């Protein structure tokens, strides 16, 4: 079995199994906690407010923009870039078709590659910011830096493989697939779980505040 066969086969399969099982286990673990139904009389529609906050929290309230606008823009661009490259690069679509039986139109490499490059640069900026910002210096732990590295690897290896830079193509592709496997495995054990938790977490705050008639 070649390295590429291993990366495409057992490594990816086990990574997907660990990803699905781990995410499910962590989610079920959270759902096992009790949440009592409130007994006071609501002032607003909690459910609607919850759904609203899922989307509204993508942008900060106007009053915060002077202080955090730049970071929000960088963060948003990074996420858009990551999702764009993940879902609109032709070989990725082929991978998803093989996995799910679904496909969709892709975007030309001449567009995807620069986007991937910019996305990687944004991640490097985030890394530099985390090293230098006084608040983040206090807050950051090893997990934050490991997560940054594990998130950067698929982008870096993907770019190198596509540009035929470094090791031979098959090896780079195998490393790219292995880095994706590592990323998938790391999700349930790290803050990358926010990919899943962002929706219920925002929704609950929106619902709690909405219950009191407050827009969150």
């Amino acid at each position: 079995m070649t390295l590429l066969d291993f990366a495409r086969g057992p490594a990816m399969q086990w990574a997907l199994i660990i990803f699905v099982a781990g995410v499910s286990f962590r989610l079920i673990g959270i759902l096992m906690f009790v949440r009592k139904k409130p007994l006071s009389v609501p002032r607003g529609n909690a459910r609607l407010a919850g759904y609203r906050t899922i989307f509204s929290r993508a942008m900060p309230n106007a009053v915060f923009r002077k202080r955090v606008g730049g970071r929000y823009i960088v963060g948003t661009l990074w996420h858009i870039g990551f999702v764009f490259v993940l879902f609109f690069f032709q070989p990725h679509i082929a991978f998803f078709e093989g996995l799910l039986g679904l496909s969709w139109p892709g975007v030309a490499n001449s567009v995807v590659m620069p986007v991937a490059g910019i996305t990687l640069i944004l991640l490097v900026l985030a890394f530099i910011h985390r090293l230098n910002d006084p608040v983040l210096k206090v807050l950051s732990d090893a997990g934050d830096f490991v997560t940054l590295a594990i998130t950067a690897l698929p982008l870096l290896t993907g770019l190198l493989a596509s540009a035929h830079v470094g090791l031979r193509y098959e090896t780079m592709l195998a490393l790219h697939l292995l880095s994706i496997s590592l990323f998938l495995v790391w999700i349930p054990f790290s803050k990358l779980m926010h990919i899943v938790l962002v929706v219920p977490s925002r929704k609950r705050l929106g619902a709690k505040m909405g219950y009191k008639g407050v827009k969150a």
Partner: protein
Amino acid sequence: MSMDKEMQDSFAMFYGMSQSLKGMVEPVEMSDDERVSKAKQVFLNKINRDMALNLEACVHCGLCAEACQYYIASDDPKYLPIGKLDLMKRVYRRELSPFRWFHKLHTSDITADDLREFQPKVFDECTMCGRCSMLCPMGIDIAEMVHVSREAMVEAGLMPSELDYMCREQDGEGTIFGANEDLLNFRLNDLKEKHGVEIYVDKPGSEVMMLTSGLDIHLFTDALLGTIKALDHLKVNWTLCSHAFEAANFGLLAGSDSTQKHVTMRIVDAAIEMGVKTVLTPECGHTYPAMRWAAAEMSGKPLPFEVMTVSEYLGRQIMDGKLKLKKVPGNKVVTLHDPCKVGRHGGVFDEPRAVLEELGLTLNETESNREVNFCCGGGAGNFLVQSAAPVRKLGFDNKMKEVNNTGAEALVVSCGSCRLNFEAGKLNSNETIEIDSLAALVGENLPD
């Protein structure tokens, strides 16, 4: 209207009294093991699904700092809101999280020294204003978990002595600052004699049970008078209850579950006994969430009466066309402080603004208003805690920057402790802005 001579004298006496509570109770003696065990038990019992979700969801972005009044005023990362949950997070990760076996490998257990180190973080350095939750991209409710952390400190015998004193007084005498039934009657008779208002205490068949507070009985009598005058003007069938008039709930502020329940249930039981339809809370910010949201939970069933705070009640009367007010002369420009507990934690925003409009006042909003309003700097009982004085000043200065930018002649507020904090803040600064009670403004401008 600035403070008259009588109120200035009362303020000097009351402020002196409120700042001399430290050391009035002995520190709680307890072994370190017992402190840790009791604190952990609180975390283990109180962490619910929402908190678990929040503790799992943090991405360490640090943006919450950018909403915190104390961080904004100081640029000191020690005020980072999410950092105040470190102990709770460690207990959660080690004992409760789905991957606890994994987290135990790299997360240290909490110690008594940790508890002592974090005591000022969850008391002095956080008023649980909740502004950080309005910015957090993950929607984490940090204030709620700081409250649980305060509860853990209380159980571990590490409550600031000022708040401990207040809780013990509420548990024992049922009063705050010694404002008992005798003092209430003295104050009510004084108001009756000077202003000719009708006073009702323990009146059977009343529809509205009004609460007041030691703060208003001692000091902010204009707010008490304004409420009484407005209720009389509206011909509301109201009463005070001689054994359940104190609205303040230091249990909620300090994180003492037992005191909170004790204080809450005294009011709930009295309201049920009297068969009132409405309980009207005074200009006392934290009373509102204590009664409006938490009281039903404390009772274990929905309340058979509605709860309204005075600014909400008066605003509704105006919005429904039932209350007209005289216009304040002179095109006066004011700004409004939304008390965190009534606004961001209560949803009362439109009603006080309706009152100001009815009074013909021009409202210049602070840049941060309504759900993102800044705290007065001394909320959640911190206005009494001596060691919190430096951060209170940070919060006050931060708030006043926005207030001064409005160009307003007066700052209108409908919370006694915010008002006290603003008046006290003025003593240690060059600020001279007039601080007005919303209820007092209504009382002074009722039609003849």
